[in-house]
């Protein structure tokens, strides 16, 4: 209970930072911090596997990719402009309010938290694999198909972009080609 009381406010602050900060890179770093704290929450309640995977996937991959895409796409001042537009506020609220309502509803169903997290059984890879590929096999397959499709699509897009940038003849000095 105590770790949660310390971690949750930090998480909320980090999430607020991610939303409020004007510079996209700062926001992304705060998002990474929020995700990392989520992982710590998982670890604190004894869900080691989920915690580490959360850390690896969200901090190590998702946050890094966000940061990287910020680096290469260079949004410029668009983010600040978006922040100033009132319509974005409305959209944002429309998105977040239902989620918040669901959360409040879920929290109200369990009025009191259990005193201690149940002792989690030592998780062997084998049992994990068995569960994944028997009970949850359709889900795993569906995700696999989806990911494969996404990867092929990404590869095709990349190839197209690559090809279009290479059809251009050798550039002459002082006339930079489009990119």
């Amino acid at each position, binding site marked *: 209970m105590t770790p949660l009381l310390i971690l949750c406010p930090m998480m909320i602050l980090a999430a607020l930072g991610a939303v409020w900060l004007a510079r996209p890179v700062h926001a992304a770093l705060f998002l990474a911090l929020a995700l990392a704290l989520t992982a710590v929450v998982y670890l604190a309640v004894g869900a080691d596997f989920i915690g580490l995977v959360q850390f690896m996937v969200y901090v190590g991959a998702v946050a*890094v990719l966000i940061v*990287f895409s910020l680096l290469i796409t260079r949004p410029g001042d668009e983010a600040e402009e978006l922040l100033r537009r009132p319509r974005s506020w409305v959209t944002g609220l429309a998105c977040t309010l239902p989620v918040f309502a669901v959360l409040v509803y879920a929290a109200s169903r369990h009025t009191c938290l259990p005193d201690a997290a149940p002792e989690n059984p030592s998780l062997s890879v084998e049992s994990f694999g068995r569960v994944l590929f028997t009970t949850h096999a359709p889900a795993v397959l569906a995700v696999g198909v989806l990911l494969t499709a996404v990867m092929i699509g990404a590869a095709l897009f990349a190839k197209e972009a690559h090809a279009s940038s290479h059809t251009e003849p050798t550039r002459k000095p002082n006339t930079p080609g489009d990119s």
Partner: protein
Amino acid sequence: MSGFDASHSAAVLWAPECWPRLPQRLVEMLLHFCGAPDWLVTIGGLVAAAGTVVGVFLTGFALLSLIERKTLARIQNRIGPNRAGWFGILQPVADGIKMLTKEDIVPTKAEWFLHLLAPILIVVPSILALGVLPYGREWVPVPLDLGLLFFFAVGTLTELAVFMAGWASGSKFPMLGAMRAISQMVSYELPLMLSALGVIMVSGTLSLPGIVAQQSGFLLGFIPAWNVFTPWGLSAGLVFYIASIAEANRCPFDLPEGESEIVAGHMTEYSGFKYALFFMGEYLGLFAISGLGITLFLGGWQAPFPGLGSVPSWIWFFSKLVVVIFSFLWIRGTFPRVRIDQLMRFAWLCLIPMALLTIPAAGIWHFAGGGLIGWAVTVPMLLVPWVVLTIHYNKRLAPATRTYTFADS
């Protein structure tokens, strides 16, 4: 990690096998006899154990910085540092003093907080990762059940740290370095993890001591039963080795630093002790990733020959570490750096397919029980991509024979 067990006999305590745990045991004993509560004894012991690991590897860092310079010097027919102390043994101390006394420069355009945080964030994951490796039969600082997962999870922090360093410096070469670093690390983390998957499948555990235990024994009485001596293990081990060079930013994959191109990459705007911290992070990361490779493929602390049970197991681990790190130095002394597009193509078109292929091979090996059938199925399976690669290389990538003419007139 239980509290102090008073039944430890002095013989066990003083056995060479347990030497690395001596600080922990001594602190526990001391606290116990001082009448400290059990939790304090445990925490004290853990602090001592962590101190041992950090102490050993910081000494290793200092030594490695010297050994690297000496080895590279010898490869290049030089002598290397030999002025500070006997054979330059005090050179790391001199370097440390120099780094500490240098001015700490923060560029005016830098984000000072992130600029400060980055070098710290580089070192922390490396030390954390070092905490879960099994160094000896009796010496596993933190025997986590999910050790391997933990290792990869904390390892991912480095990317963010490098990004912070590059971005917060507010300069262009660090920015380019950060872009290179992230794309490189993201690409090479995949083959790194995929090549470890086979080991997890065969050993059926994510615990690093468990993986080492699975590699005990000898085939035919003299070949150690390490993963690297199986077809899929050799294949995965090679992938892991190459990917770990890239993950540790070592030559020929040291593009983020890319001295001749982008000055020092993400470290360009650092000076003084922050700069030294980057090096500490790099070397500790090198220890960690080599240690993991040893654990996964080279049998961890297992002895390489039968009949050497009396030698403390941690000696084997560190001997293997020395060999692996020497190979890194050797490569660094020989190869030029690859270009970023070649690096990416190599990762996505060569390493990742190879790593993916080792997974079914490991599965077949696991279910075939590793006998003749295992060899018969997996060897051709893994040879195919090498053959394909060779053909592709010779047909598409390898340059046409260059003919040079001589003008006589």
